[in-house]
């Protein structure tokens, strides 16, 4: 099975992967990459109103084959709340 490397950032910590995970194909790597985004979000949220979670997948040659982001954009709709 080919090995894929997942570099992730939760808005605070960017972690680059030098170990990798063996997966059957690029589609499995895509699914794994998307799957980590809600995991990171669950750990980090709620805190502020703006945050971007990001992941990018490298193959064994070091080429980025897939990347994805998940963004929180929160906004008060009333004047006084939260201030």
């Amino acid at each position, binding site marked *: 099975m080919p090995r894929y490397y997942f570099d992730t950032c939760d808005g605070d910590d960017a*972690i680059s992967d030098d170990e*990798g995970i063996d997966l059957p194909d690029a589609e499995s790597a895509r699914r*794994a990459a998307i*799957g*980590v985004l809600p*995991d990171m979000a*669950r750990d980090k949220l709620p805190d502020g109103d703006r945050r971007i979670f990001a992941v990018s997948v490298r193959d064994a040659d070091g080429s980025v084959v897939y990347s994805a982001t998940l963004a929180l954009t929160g906004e008060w709709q009333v004047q006084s709340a939260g201030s």
Partner: protein
Amino acid sequence: MFTASEHPLSPLLKKLGSLTRLSDRDEQAILHLPASPRVFAAGQDLVGEGDRPTRCWLIVEGWVQRYKVLDEGKRQISAFHVAGDMPDLQGLHLSVMDHNLGALTRVTALSVPHEALRELLLRIPELNAPFWRDTLVDAAIFREWVANVGRRPAYQRLAHLFCELYLKQVAVGLARDGRCPMPVTQVDLADATGLTSVHVNRTLRELRRDGLIELRGKRLEIPDWPRLVAAASFNPAYLHLASRPTA
């Protein structure tokens, strides 16, 4: 008389002895249980969901995972078991297996017939307590896993699991000085903690970066036990060890 340390059943004495005091008579009676060895390859099941076992397995060497398979082949691991554990002891009273026990590594296990265990417990009623205690402690560990998987963030969740697996091995003499076997893959850790394997990969890296663990060649190193305990909010009370092992 058997010498306890050389006997094939001695891991069971170590395990039960880590939870409660056994008299010499109790130890000899346990060592006289009939037991036949079998080797399982990694990935093989010792017993599967729906089976009606007629014997219990005592793990002598290697790691066993307790798991369920869900829809689409998803897997939830609910326990890791090591030498000295008898993970299907409940089969004595619950006739149909409601989950699987699989070899995570190559496993050597001893098969002990239910008949022989029942006969032993009838003959020496005092022995019911240690076996009962063993299953109660397993239940306490399951409660902790529910709290861990349900409520702790990934970083704490993995740190907590490492604390538990290290102390479990210290208790039966398989670990010391902050080092122990840890023959689990990132996928196994993901299936045990309800995280994706990529998140496990990321979190292990964070734990390493913070100097809390080293994972090398299927072994875990804990450079600073009190710091890992603090990071995990780990309280070993739920393991109910008879004597608190010194980590």
